[in-house]
């Protein structure tokens, strides 16, 4: 029996972590996501499922604790907001380099620097183009509702383990702070020692017993070997691009124009679509759900029928680069977005559509 509740996005991350059989959470408080750890401390999962929930001394410590726990084949996670994720950049690169699965949640806020605590989507580049040194990618999921905050915790862990790669949920202050109706999935138990050995015994540091040593490291000083390793990573990313793209289209069948947006901007964009449709403008919404891998083929296919695309983001324009790479110069692709913690209104998006496409 699934359970209906009214919850904040941040609270549901904690609830879903416990329910999906997460083994360990390490974090450090920062607005607007502190409720993740607060909720875990209230729920005391160490008394029920045995999940560890620990406040580390910093974000750097948190991500390295995740590295340690993930090395043993456990389901480990952390959460933070933009400046905290910057501090984790090295750890993320090491996790990707050691091919360790984990979940990192970024409930982003306005930057650069310490910035503001209000919502922002200016961490798109950091999330999708690396967020650390070296040729690597995170799997990046962008929820646009509290329900998806719940669902994507399960999905992120599944994908992370399938590809032995860190996964990120890239949310924003609105999705973290708002409450919506959410259907909670039935708890699934944490994996037993036998299950951990079965699923991760080929690579994880589970305690050596009659098998070759498993070594968790991201160092390889022989360039030839390291090139091979890098090529292996690229094969993995190509497979993700082929198999794991997720997106949503609304009212696109007869669309002449498209609003492309993810996360909270997709919700605002959807309202703008409703307002414009009421005026008779044929506009649809394209919402990437996986930001990496980006739905390149899908947006390009849709673009064939369009007169133009407006990318709506709470940033100066970041996802727009992936949209432009997807559709080329075949049609106008414009940006609209407030930033620094200011949230655009549906009416502002409607007005931007009118100005850019002159209807």
């Amino acid at each position, binding site marked *: 029996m699934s359970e*209906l*509740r*009214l919850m904040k996005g941040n609270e549901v991350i904690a609830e879903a972590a416990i329910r999906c059989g997460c083994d360990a959470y390490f974090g450090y408080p920062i*607005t*607007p996501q502190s409720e993740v750890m607060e909720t875990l401390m209230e729920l005391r999962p160490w008394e029920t499922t045995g999940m560890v929930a620990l406040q580390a001394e910093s974000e750097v410590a948190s991500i390295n604790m995740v590295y340690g726990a993930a090395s043993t084949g456990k389901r480990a996670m952390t959460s933070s907001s933009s400046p905290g994720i910057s501090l984790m950049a090295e750890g993320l690169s090491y996790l990707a380099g050691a091919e360790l699965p984990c979940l990192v949640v970024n409930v982003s806020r306005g930057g650069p620097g310490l910035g503001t*605590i*209000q919502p922002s989507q200016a961490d798109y580049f950091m999330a999708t183009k690396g967020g650390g040194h070296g040729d690597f990618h995170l799997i990046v999921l962008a929820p646009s509702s509290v329900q998806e905050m719940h669902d994507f915790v399960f999905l992120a862990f599944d994908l992370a383990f399938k590809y032995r790669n860190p996964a990120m949920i890239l949310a924003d*202050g*609105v999705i973290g*702070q*708002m*409450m*919506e*109706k959410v259907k909670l999935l039935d708890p699934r138990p944490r994996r037993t020692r036998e299950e951990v050995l079965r699923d991760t015994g080929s690579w994880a540091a589970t305690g050596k017993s009659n098998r070759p040593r498993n070594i968790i490291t991201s160092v390889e000083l022989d360039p030839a070997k390291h090139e091979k390793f890098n090529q292996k990573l690229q094969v993995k990313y190509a497979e993700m691009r082929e198999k794991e793209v997720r997106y949503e289209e609304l009212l696109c069948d007869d669309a002449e124009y498209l609003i492309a947006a993810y996360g*909270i901007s997709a*919700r*605002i964009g*959807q*309202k703008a*679509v*409703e307002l414009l449709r009421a005026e008779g403008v044929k506009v649809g919404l394209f919402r990437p759900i996986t930001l990496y891998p980006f739905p390149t083929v899908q947006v390009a296919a849709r673009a064939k029928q369009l007169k133009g695309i407006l990318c709506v983001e709470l940033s100066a324009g970041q996802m727009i680069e992936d949209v432009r790479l997807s559709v080329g110069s075949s049609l106008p692709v414009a940006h609209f977005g407030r930033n620094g913690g200011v*949230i655009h*209104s*549906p*009416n502002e998006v409607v007005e931007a559509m009118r100005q850019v496409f002159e209807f």
Partner: protein
Amino acid sequence: MKEEIIIAGFGGQGVLSMGKILAYSGIMQNQEVTWMPSYGPEMRGGTANVTVILSDDRISSPIVHEFDTAIILNQQSLDKFEPMVKRGGLLLYDPNGITAPPTRTDITVYRTAATAEAAKMGNAKVFNMVVLGSFLKVKPVVKLENVVKGLQKSLPERAHKLIPANEQAILRGMEIAERLTPSC
């Protein structure tokens, strides 16, 4: 049915919890709901507000800048949100501390002396439920029985003994809502 509501006042007046109870009541009658608070520095000692949307269909934006209803509990919020009520919409306010009452004539304005009423009832804490009652009298977007169920879901078990007092406050609020503008 779709109702976009802003509830605004001072921190500590129960603005956020009123919104939460309203949202839970919506869930109890199978509506889609969103509850989006202001958060951050303005919450700490200043004004607090929350946008609640109740709808029969999937809700697009939880952020709106025009409201069907504004429930206003202090002067700063009245100044800020009176212009953001949709034409033909509702503005409900508590006159306590209001020095410059609303002036728009293209909306419906109701007054509820909830602060005074809660004091009369000897329980200042139920103030927000008096306000909620007044709102539900004017716009019965959720049924009283579902509000009671919403209270049961949103209050911790130990506070369930307070539900009858809250229900009484809602009923009292329904009685004291006072219309100030002719219908438009």
